[in-house]
């Protein structure tokens, strides 16, 4: 029946073209919206993952308690009555037993890599210029395996921090603020002792001012020494073999320690909610578009079937059964859906390429173009949705046509 279906569609080119255009536009709009949404999502995810790994293990903030302090000042037998009971927080947030974590992570087959970090606040200065920074001590070899920070290096490489030796990588915004460049020596102070000189071996540019203006990366041992706290680790970023295991692993590991263990999704709950809202919006938009396209197919096929009753009658009397009539009209819906979806995908890619080539006056990530996703899943979804809408929309009129008996039609015509 494909032959007849094609001939019938070709005989009414205008109607066929209009339906194909309708489906194409629907598919195209979905691809544009989904491409932009997924593009932004990929960009934001990457930005977030630079700072929060699949699982982040960090020291939990702990309150001081009378029970903890009492043995430090008094022996067991002394009765102590506090005038003002001890209260407040313990010093900075740090892991209780980093070595224990390293061992556990080494042995876990689901762990791809991990990287310890030690973070403190400090002031970087050059000449008269001073600027507050967030200093993160990293193990560059391990860090590169956990995040994609290396991709954002403007100059130099994170690997230059390997082995230590008072070297530092500064955010592009920090360098700009203090008027320094790669190769210069800056002074770093954290409020303990005299400021120390560090040579700038690289600059990093994430495209996010929030990070670029405060970021300072050094070798973890150098930063631990600067802080007079050798071996101290504030957090461990963990990369898993499967990111979807992050929630499960975080829940399991948090049972072993007082440290805080957060999966990627928990750490970015707001982001995940935003993604959920985006997904819902896209689903509503897709539904609306496909409803309109489907309604077009339904209308045109219904009108055509009422115009082609005589032909259905002759086909039925020649021996074409109800299923063959169903095939004839369902086939037309499918062909229209197929061509429309294909054409829509090409149009969508074209429009997205144009949108993606527009130069913006601000930076988004590493470039000044809108991030657009061309993930195959977008096209597969668009294609499947258009085809399903076409099948549903054409099934109803096709089914009613298949139920027509030749005699009913002949009597109606008489």
């Amino acid at each position: 029946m494909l032959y007849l279906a094609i001939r019938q569609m070709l005989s009414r080119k205008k109607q066929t073209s209009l339906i194909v255009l309708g489906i194409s536009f629907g598919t195209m709009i979905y691809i544009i919206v989904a491409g932009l949404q997924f593009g932004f999502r990929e960009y934001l995810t990457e930005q977030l993952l630079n700072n929060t790994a699949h699982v982040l293990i960090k020291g939990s903030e702990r309150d001081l308690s009378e029970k903890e302090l009492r043995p430090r000042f008094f022996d067991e037998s002394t009765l102590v009555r506090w005038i003002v009971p001890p209260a407040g927080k313990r010093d900075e947030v740090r892991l209780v037993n980093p070595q224990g974590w390293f061992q556990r992570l080494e042995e876990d087959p689901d762990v791809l890599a991990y990287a310890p970090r030690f973070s403190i606040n400090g002031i970087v200065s050059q000449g008269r210029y001073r600027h507050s920074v967030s200093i993160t001590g990293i193990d560059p070899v391990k860090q590169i395996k956990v995040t994609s920070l290396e991709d954002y290096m403007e100059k130099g490489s994170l690997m230059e921090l390997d082995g230590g030796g008072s070297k530092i990588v500064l955010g592009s915004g920090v360098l700009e603020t203090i008027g320094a460049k790669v190769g210069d020596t800056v002074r770093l102070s954290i409020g303990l002792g005299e400021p120390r000189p560090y040579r700038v071996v690289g600059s990093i540019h994430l495209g996010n001012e929030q990070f670029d203006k405060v970021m300072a990366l050094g070798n973890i041992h150098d930063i631990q020494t600067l802080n007079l706290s050798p071996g101290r680790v504030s957090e461990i970023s963990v990369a898993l073999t499967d990111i979807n295991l992050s929630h499960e692993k975080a829940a399991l590991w948090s049972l072993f320690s007082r440290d805080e263990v957060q999966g990627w999704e928990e750490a970015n709950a707001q982001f995940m909610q935003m993604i959920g809202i985006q997904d819902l919006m896209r689903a509503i938009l897709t539904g609306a578009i496909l409803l309109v396209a489907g309604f077009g197919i339904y209308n045109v096929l219904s009108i055509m079937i009422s115009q082609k009753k005589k032909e259905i009658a002759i086909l039925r009397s020649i021996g074409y059964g109800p299923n063959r009539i169903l095939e004839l009209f369902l086939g037309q819906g499918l062909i229209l859906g197929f061509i429309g979806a294909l054409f829509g995908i090409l149009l969508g890619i074209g429009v997205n390429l144009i949108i993606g080539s527009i130069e913006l006056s601000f930076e988004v990530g590493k470039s000044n173009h809108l991030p657009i996703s061309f993930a195959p899943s977008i096209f597969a979804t668009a294609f499947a949705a258009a085809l399903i809408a076409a099948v549903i929309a054409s099934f109803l009129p096709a089914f009613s046509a298949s139920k027509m008996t030749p005699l009913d039609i002949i009597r109606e015509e008489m």
Partner: protein
Amino acid sequence: MGIVGKNVVKQFGSPPMVILHGLDLEIEDGEFVSISGRSGSGKSTLLYLLSTLDNPSDGVIEIDGVSPQKMTVNELHRFRNEKIGFIFQFHYLLPELTGLENVLLGPRNLGLEKQKKDEALALLDQLEVYKQANKFPSEMSGGEQQRVAIARALILSPKYLFADEPTGNLDSVSGNKVMSILEETSQNNNMTIVLVTHERDYAARANREIYLVDGRISENYS
């Protein structure tokens, strides 16, 4: 085996309006029978019952030894495809297909369009519409369209040919031509032909006439 109708009743609506009142008739294989009568006499209704397009309200119809009422939908369509040809007053050609493609619709349903192509062209030639083989129905006259429709009905050499007022929409020249074709087909192919017509002259050209009056066979003519 032919076509046999026993006590065939057809009624419509509620309260029921009886169109055919217990007809008994027999049409032998190879016979050319006409059914005529005034408008509303039930001649088209009888043709649709005999040709498997409709079922009687009461009574039995057997065609080629089997009752269409007992066939499944698929069996019925296969039976129509292989053994029955229809010609209607309105030719019902598919406008998006050429004359030849319209003739080959039946063979196409059986996957025989390639084998039957030469035969279809020969048939169109025989019916003097060879030049219309590659024309669309909109490019043909009414008479030419009806002859293409006859070729479509004959292409699978059906055992039974049912014609419902095939000349009703044609001028006298075209009408005569169609009648001549039916006569030749009956003589040469030993095909059983049942023709419904309200024109007495054409009815008389059949081997046998069945004349209906108010849903009953009139003895004067049968």
